[in-house]
């Protein structure tokens, strides 16, 4: 085979050659899955607290991105989020990281940082509430963006990423669909 024919050979042939070489090198990976234990009532409760906060966030998004004519609603949702923020720390007080949960053990190791992140979140929710009452669209958008970032500031260090979520793993029982979003 001369150089030109080799170079113009089809993509299929090129990939077949390369695949054979790679299989010869023995490139492989294995994935293991942990078994889940049962849910505890504390975990179910705190998941609902987080879920309510997330639902408020989603509801505000529905209003703002679709320009729904619902004056005053964003302020109510933001105010409710700020109130709910006060329930987070007590709901997580008990150290349970081994059940069907995405809470990382780091929460209880870095409890002060966890509480500080929640306070920042509450403050951002109050800011959005105030901006929504003020009615300046640009200020509301900026406050919304800031609030979204505060969600992440707590989720990044303290919540397992989606690909490691218990929700991806096979369940032993089906009574709870795991809508909680902690």
């Amino acid at each position, binding site marked *: 085979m001369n150089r030109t024919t080799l170079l*113009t050979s089809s993509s299929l042939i090129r*990939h077949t050659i390369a695949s054979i070489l790679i299989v010869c090198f023995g490139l492989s990976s294995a994935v293991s899955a942990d078994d889940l234990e049962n849910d505890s009532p504390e975990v179910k409760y705190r998941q609902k607290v987080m879920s309510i906060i997330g639902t408020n966030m*989603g*509801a505000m998004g529905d209003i703002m991105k679709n320009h729904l004519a619902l004056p005053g609603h964003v302020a109510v949702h933001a105010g409710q989020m700020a109130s709910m923020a006060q329930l987070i720390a007590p709901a997580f007080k008990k150290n349970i990281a081994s059940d069907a949960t995405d809470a990382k053990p780091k929460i209880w190791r870095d409890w002060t940082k966890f509480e500080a992140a929640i306070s920042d979140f509450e403050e951002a929710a109050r800011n959005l509430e105030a901006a929504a009452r003020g009615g300046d669209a640009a200020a509301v958008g900026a406050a919304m963006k800031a609030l979204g970032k505060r969600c992440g500031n707590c989720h990044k260090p303290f919540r397992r990423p*989606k690909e490691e979520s218990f929700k991806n793993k096979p369940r032993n029982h089906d009574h709870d669909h795991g809508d909680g979003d902690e």
Partner: protein
Amino acid sequence: MNPVASRRRPSGDEAEAGTRSRQCLPIRAVFRIAGILWLAAAGVASANPDVERGRRVFYATGGCSCHTNYPGEGDDAPWLAGGRPLETPFGVFYSTNITRDPETGLGGWSDADFIRAMREGLSPEGRHYFPVFPYTSFSGLRRQDLVDLKAYLDSLPAIERANRDPDAPFPFSWRAALVGWKWLNFDPQRIEADKDRSDEWNRGNYLVRAAAHCGECHTPRTLTGGLDRSMWLAGSLEGPEGERAPNITPHRETGIGSWSIPDLVWYLEMGLKPDGDDTQGLMSEVIEHGYSNLSAGDLAAIATYLKSIPAIENDLRAK
């Protein structure tokens, strides 16, 4: 274009269009003619490099977030000075310094150097870049967008930080092997306007495929690390930094078919999903430092394009 660099190579466009050795002659001829037309069009349309337009291109790339080590050094990490570990199935690669620092960054690069790096994956000295740098997508960027982007990068502070070699096993750490990789997996893109589609769709197609380089994470890869184009944007378990990159085709159950165009625009602007959850991982960074700063028109264009692509069933949660 810098005349010195032009002497070394005829021009980025011409070389790209005409000298791909493995294309057969008629195709090469077509590409050469297309290249000449392209150059003629570019000659008419081209303007001087513009920092403000370049900022918009920068945002469209996701703020070049891979080049800042946010995970390791936080929000105060040296901006665009590289050093961020990118964990791929082939080893750990470290992003490079793209500030205008003359010793460790892109200081002293000509426009032609920059264009060649972005479109051909070659350094000014002719070394191959590891494809963790998505020149596969950036090859589709228009020349004007590239010189504008360079002008914007040149307007930012220089930071001295030396680049780091990859922690990857042989042969993946071996640049010479990239000749073979490119032969297998790299076809420079030429994104032409589709006259049957709206301007908005065409803009979205260009942004998604070139600047925003969505496919680099959201399209699964073949064994050799090339994009599996039959699964365009259908999600990958081996996204950047070992993260799962979701299926973003309009498949109802396994993709984002239930998301409306306002949902997508809101997501790229705020980083918030329709259910109110925030975004994790590298995606949250490319939104914060990049896409969220795009114009409403560009975001709507991206959303319009994403809603138009074939829905592919690929349930990553089940894998």
